[in-house]
Each structure stands twice: as C-alpha cells, then as structure tokens.
C-alpha cells in the first residue's frame, strides 16, 4: 500500500514538472560557466605535477630522517634515490620553464638526419643551461638504480628474517 502511494506521488511530480523542463530545453541561452582550456594549461598542470611530486619527495625524506623505522642498510640508497629524484625534478622543472622563454627557432629539428638537429645559435647562458639540463637521465637513471638497490637490500633482509623466523 505504501509503495502504491509513493509511485502515485512520483508520477504526479513528473506530470507537473515535465512541461517546465521542456520549456527550458526549447529556449536555450549562452552558457557562461563553460571554461576554455588553452595550450599552456597542460604545461602548467605538468609543472604543478612536478611541484607536488617535489613536495612529496621532500616530505618523505623528512619523515624518513625524522622517524627512522629501523637500522636496515637499505635506507641509505633509498634516501640517496629520493635526493636524485629531487634533483631530477628540479632540473626538469627548470628545463620546462626555460623552454617557455625559448623561441621555436632555437631548436632545429626539421631534418630526418638526427646529426643535423641543433640548438640554434646564439648559445648564450640560458641556452647553454637548457642544453646541459636536458641531460636529465644522468639524474633519473641513478635515482632509479638507487631505488632498485634499496629494494634488493630490503628483500634480502626480509628473506633473512623469514629464514630466522622473525617478523618485520
């Protein structure tokens, strides 16, 4: 009995609200709330991502330094890895910012011959910094290697603990 009353109430609402809805749909006006996303927005979002990742790394380093969990040998490579990721993050952040100031003509990449691709002159300090900064794999590869190194140490110690019947 209660369900029947509920259904009747809903159908009454539909009957009274449907004409109003149709009226609104058939008389459209400009929607001012729609936001347009221009080209720099992706770069900004990417830079914000770098910044958040940077903050997270600093926070993690702070936590590990402030409250060390145990005396494992894996913490040192983990901390070094985080420092290298921090440096890499700063480096790429700087490169992204530098690329904003550089004109499109600064990079010649029009040929299919990679040897002819150049950072066009004049090579001033900004372009030289950009050129050096682009070697970011020299930072992120050691960071990843140190991360792997810490995990291998943690895993070895965990296996040792399991063999000794201990718990972490």
């Amino acid at each position: 009995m209660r369900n029947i009353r509920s259904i009747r109430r809903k159908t009454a609402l539909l009957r009274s609200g449907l004409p109003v809805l149709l009226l609104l749909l058939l008389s459209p006006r400009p929607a001012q709330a729609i936001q347009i996303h221009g080209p720099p927005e992706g770069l900004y979002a990417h830079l914000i991502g770098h910044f958040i990742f940077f903050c997270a790394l600093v926070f993690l380093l702070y936590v590990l330094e402030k409250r060390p969990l145990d005396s494992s040998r894996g913490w040192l490579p983990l901390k070094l890895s985080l420092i290298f990721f921090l440096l890499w993050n700063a480096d790429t952040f700087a490169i992204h910012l530098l690329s904003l100031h550089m004109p499109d003509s600064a990079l010649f990449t029009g040929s299919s011959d990679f040897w002819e691709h150049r950072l066009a002159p004049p090579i001033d300090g900004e372009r030289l910094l950009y050129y050096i900064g682009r070697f970011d794999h020299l930072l992120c590869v050691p960071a990843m290697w140190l991360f792997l190194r810490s995990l291998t140490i943690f895993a070895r110690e965990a296996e040792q603990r399991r063999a000794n019947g201990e718990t972490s």
Partner: protein
Amino acid sequence: MTDTGLPLFFLYLQDFAGALLMIALSLGALFYARRLTRLEPQCVLWTYLLWLSVALAAFSISRSIGHVLRFILIWSGRQEVWTRLAPFSGGMNSLIFAAAAALTFYYHAMHAIISRVRTDAEALRNANENLLAAHEALHLLNHTLEERVEARSRELLLSEQKFRHLFEGSKDMIFFCDANGRISDINAAGVELLGATDKKEIVGRRLADFFAAPELWQRYCAALSNHGHVKDFEVDIRRADGTIRSIMLTASAILDENGTVQGCEGIGKDLTHFKQVTNQLILSEKMASVGHLAAGVAHEINTPLGIILGYCQLLTEDLADHKEALPILKIMEKQTKSCKRIVADLLKFSRHTAEEHRAPTDVNQCVREVVSIMDHTLEMDNITLSLFLDENLPPVVLDAEKFRQVLVNLITNAQHAINKDGLIAIWSKRRGGDTVEIIVADNGTGIAPEIINKIFDPFFTTKGVGKGTGMGLAVSFGIVKDHGGDLQVYSPPCDPQCREAGMRTAFHILLPAAAPEG
C-alpha cells in the same frame, strides 16, 4: 660549434639509452617490491614501495616510450604525429607525479594510523595477556580453593584437637575468666577440683566465690592488673561441698589493644595432697625427734623408778606393823608404779620395748577381737560400729597385742570424739600391692586444722585434767612406726568412702603386707 649551434644528437642518444635503462630498472624495482610484499605482506611500507614502484614503472614506460616513439617518428619524417602524441605522454607523466605524491602523503597518514592501531593493539594485547594471567590465576585459585580450604580446615582442626586435648586431658585446673571475673570455660580437672560434677555448675560463677579468703582475691586481681600475670599464687579454695583445697595459681591477664584487662586465663595446681604429705613428713621428723628424746628420758628415769619402787616394797615389808607409815608407803608404791607405766608408754612410743612377739597376723581377726571387747562400751553410748573388711587381705607381720592396743586407742579416741549417738566405721583394704590399710573413722566433732599436726605429740590432749594422759595416740603412732608402717589422720577424710559415709575424722593405719611364702 657555437656558430652552428649545439648538436642534439648526444641528447637523443642519452634520452634513448636512459629511457631503456629507466624501463629496465623500474621493472626490476617493481619485481623486488612485489617480492617484499609477498615476503612480509603485513608491512605497510612495502605496500607503499610497491605502489611507488608501479607509479615509477608507469612513469618510466610512458616517458621512455615517448622518447623512443619521438625518434622513430622524426626519423621517419612524421614529426607532426609526435607533436600530436607528445601531450599524451606529458599528461600521463603529470598524472603519475600526482599519484606518486598522493601515495606518499597517503602512506604517511596510513603509517600514523597503523602506528596508532598497533599501539592500541599492543595495549589490547597486554591487557589481554594480563586478563589471561588473571584468569589463569583465578582458575588456579578456584581449582585449588577447595583443597586449600580443606587443608586449612584440617590444620585448624588438628590445632583445635591438640589444644582441646591438652585442655580436657590436663590433670590441673585450666580456666578462662571474663572481665568481670566470671568463669567462662573450665576443664574437667577444674570442675572436679572445685567440687562440681558438671561444667555448667561452674561456668558463669565468679572465681572469687571459690576463694576461701576474700583478701587473696583482691591480691590476685591487683597482681594481674599491675604485672599482667600471677605466678605460683597459693590460695585455699572452698569447694562446693565446703571442703578446702590448697591450689597454686599461675594466670595471665587477657588484654585488648588498649591494654585493658578483658579477663584472665590460668592454671591451678592442687597442692592439697602435697601439703598433706609435707606435713606428714614434718610430723614424722618431729615424732622421731620426740621419740628419741622420750626414749632417753624414759631410760634414765626407769632405773631410778625401779630402785624407788624396790625400796618402797622393802619398806612396806619392814614396816608392816607401822600404822602411820604403811599407808604412805602404799601411796608411794602406787604412784611409782604409775610413773613406771608412763615410762613404759614412753618406751613403747619410742619403740624401745624389750618384748617382741611378731608373727604373720590376720589384721581382720585383730579388728574383730577388739570390736567384740569394745562393742558393749560403745553400745552404752549409743555408738554404732560398722565394719567393712576386705576378706582377701594378706597377713601382716606384727605384734598382735600391740596392734590391738593401737586399735583400742583409736576406737577409744573416736568414742570420745563422738561422746554419744554416733557412728564409728572400720575399713580394711589393700592399698597398692604390698600395703594393708585399716581406717578407723568417726562422725564426731572432727579435729581443728590448727591442732591436727599436734595430736601425735606425747602428752598432747584435748580432754579435761585427769581424763587422759595424752599418750594414747603417741603410743599408737610409735607402735605403727615400729612395725614399718604409718599412721595418718585426715579431718575431713580424704577417702571417698569415708566422706560418703558422713565421717569427719579418719585415721589410716598403713602396714606392710607379709612377703608371700616361698
């Protein structure tokens, strides 16, 4: 170089090699992170590192594939394709950065929560362990409670039995009094000592009521209050039947926490028999001394008396016709003979008599002979004489004539004590294995305590002048002692049969039985 710019080839080379290394290293990290979570799945750090490895691997693959595709597309002359694809790679990298950051912050929050949960869990575990320990202890207590209660009850029962046995079995009086000096508990020996038949007759009565001398009760209470105890306190108590017993009290005050006397507990030792024995010993020593003195005196007087008597008799024969002298000589002879008789008594008392006719004798027969002689005299005074003779008595080696004299003396003494209308009873019985006891008792006036130790003294008498010499009991004492026996007097009697018969004085003749023949 600077005129033509800086070559990007080395950059490409670094990017290409670095991209491949990043993929390899990130996959390796992912492998070890996954292994860690499998080895220790409960560790939240490993979970975080696994997800960080996933993010880094995704980042490496996204970025490295981007680099590789860029080379391929540029090399194949399709740079515009790379230009369209590059934002996807960058967007993906941005998302991974955000995800890695979120993971890091999330890990920290999770770690804090888990630490708190772990702390709480540790506290819960400790509480649980404590609860388990308490439960175990309670279970153990519950399990052993019955046994422990039983063991404790058994110990208490044994202790109670031990002290109850000591209390009830003691031959000395043990008593407890309350703050008012009323007896709250007393053992069987105490009941008997105070002359009652049941404890109920004693409990509730004041101990002071039994003290013969009230001033001794005051001294007893003062000593308890001042010193907390009394020791070897000699006191005479008046029993329920009126008889007096001498006891020695040793008691302690019962004090509460404030030091106030709440009562007393003590032991009373009956000294009556001890005192009697002591008095008899003293009496024996005294009689021995008197006997020795009497023997010396009698011996010294006997000879002159014999001479005086001889000359009196010679003079009587020589002056038979002299009318004036003859009566005087007769009086002298009579008085001299009286003196001789007294001296003879003294010699009998001191056991220095010449004639001895000892033989194994039936003491019952002697008693009957004496009674048959004296019965008539007693009947004249309306005195009944009862005999309670043990027919199985062993013979006694004695001088029958002297023994009969002892019996005559004692019966005569009893007759005088009764005067008229009374009862004399004679018991013969065996005491121990080798002693025959003859008791001569009467229900006369009794003997006052102050003279009872003097009645065996020579010449001691309570009779009027001329009615007795005071030698009867002394002579009897001497004769009995001369036979290796003893003569004791009790007033009131100590023998239950005598007391039940209503006797007030009892003389006990103790004689050694003759050794059996063979």
